[in-house]
């Protein structure tokens, strides 16, 4: 197991370097010279030359890339062009609000979609299953924008059941988070229910299910005690792969509901072309994705020893 894990981590290093190279090229090379942006329209040539030198932008390509890697290894992402704040501080500030939305939404959506998928599998090809599948396909086809705007308008603005937007730390903030969490769950349900249903149906074709049925166990019992544990591997892997999403949060949800999290920060950075912030968010998001991949593989290897050998 340990050798499997260390191999997996070693494999991640070239990918990580690839990501830094991709980001470096995109932002430094294609993105243009930030000095003009930082100094404004009235800067003269001397000032521009001095600033360019200060930022190390007159060095050769590989030296600048090396500088970037060194900064990253110190956890330094530079300063925002817009607020002049350290990007690392901005990210730490945004993490709390983002997670207060993302974690409950993630857990709720996993539980509800698993329950609905089990129900659909139990009643497969009957009207309840058909209804759930139809609803899932429709849900998948609706843009997340539609979910957000329609729900905010109908339930917060018209009906007044929820505050329209805002965020507060602690328990006083719960009413603000309720609607965004519900929207997150509703928007993710379609794809998840279909995926888990397919996983359950696949598992239900196996011989151990026939055996369990043959010895007289009822379908609900077979599903919960036999199929669910065996389907746990693909389900857990899928859930782990969704974890990095918790970090980026939902760009749009946070933006619409005025939640001061990382998603909102990213949208503001995009509107202001604040490249250091976008660069840092993209980098951290990528690192988390790689980490989630490794955890997912480790889970797989843990549950299924055959994976470890190959």
């Amino acid at each position, binding site marked *: 197991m340990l050798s499997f894990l260390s191999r997996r981590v070693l494999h991640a290093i070239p990918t990580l370097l690839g990501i830094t190279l991709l980001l470096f090229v995109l932002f430094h090379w294609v993105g243009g010279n930030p000095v003009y942006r930082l100094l404004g329209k009235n800067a003269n040539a001397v000032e521009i030359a001095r600033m360019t030198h200060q930022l190390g932008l007159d060095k050769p390509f590989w030296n600048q890339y090396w500088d970037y890697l060194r900064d990253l290894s110190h956890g330094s992402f530079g300063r925002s062009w817009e607020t002049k704040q350290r990007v690392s501080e901005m990210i730490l500030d945004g993490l709390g609000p983002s997670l207060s939305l993302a974690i409950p939404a993630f857990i709720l959506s996993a539980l509800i979609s698993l329950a609905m998928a089990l129900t659909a599998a139990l009643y497969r090809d009957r009207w309840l299953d058909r209804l759930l599948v139809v609803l899932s396909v429709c849900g998948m086809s609706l843009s997340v924008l539609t979910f957000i705007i329609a729900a905010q308008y109908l339930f917060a603005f018209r009906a007044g059941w929820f505050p329209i937007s805002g965020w507060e730390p602690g328990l006083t903030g719960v009413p603000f988070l309720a609607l965004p969490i519900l929207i997150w769950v509703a928007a993710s349900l379609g794809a998840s229910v279909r995926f888990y249903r397919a996983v359950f149906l696949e598992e239900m074709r196996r011989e151990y299910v026939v055996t369990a049925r043959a010895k007289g166990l009822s379908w609900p019992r077979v599903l919960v005690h036999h199929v669910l544990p065996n389907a746990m591997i693909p389900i857990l892997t899928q859930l782990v792969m969704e974890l990095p999403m918790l970090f*980026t949060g939902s760009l749009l949800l946070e933006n619409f509901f005025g939640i001061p999290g990382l998603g909102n920060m990213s949208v503001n950075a995009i*509107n202001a072309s604040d490249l250091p912030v976008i660069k840092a968010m993209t980098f951290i998001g990528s690192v988390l994705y790689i980490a989630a991949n490794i955890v997912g593989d480790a889970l797989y290897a843990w549950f299924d020893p055959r994976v470890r050998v190959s």
Partner: protein
Amino acid sequence: MRDLWNKIRRRFGRDKLALFSVTVISIYIVAGLLALIGILAPHYAQSVGEAYAPPSWVHPLGLDVLGRSIWDRVVQGARVALIVGFVSTFIAIPFGTVLGLIAGYFRGVVDAFVVWLYSTLDSVPTILLLLTLALVLPTGKGLATVCIALGVTSWVSTCRVVRGEVIRQKEFDYVRAARSLGATDSRILFVHVLPNALHLILVQASLVFVYSIKSEIILSYLGVGVQNFPSWGVMIDDARLELVGRGVWWQFAAATGALFILVLAFNLFNDALRDALDPNQS
């Protein structure tokens, strides 16, 4: 190839939902083409009546803030969505296919490089990568940038699928037979192996298409997509304020409805395509 076509036709002839999806997609394509050549919905940019006029017999979907016909704008939006879908699919699919063929067939260093390339790209959060590309590409904000950004980021799954299939197909006797008859590598790849992976590529193409349309909406909504032209994302952005401020729902309903129906049709189409081409089912 012929076999593939027959399978699809048989399946779609039987399955009413599949037939419905093809009909809907065809209607959108025809509408988009007619809009492109200026026959359908030509007045999308000019005022034809009072601002915020509700739906009526003359203007079935109502008018927007400048008195422009929402019907015309929705149809032009279909044109934008289809352009984005087709262009990014035509960038991503050939690129992913060729890389996947080469990587799976030659293995070794080439394969290691291709796998590195797509695992790198795959690790970057897609929405952030798309937004970054839309900001930094030299083409500037607009339709072309959206197409390029989507094209160069969505080849990954195609490449992975094709590579896996080529690794499998390579061991079959027909490849050895072709090689012993003196066929060149490129002939083996494109004439013999490619047709056997075509069913997978078709499904991928359809997935990339619908994914591109959905992404264009988000990018345009965030203001880094289509500029100065009616796109469903731009319309939803406009509609958001008038919905809350004035209760004007028709622009929002029209844009999201048009998007929903097209994406729904594509989701049904994908399912039917996958079922038709699944070798385990026939």
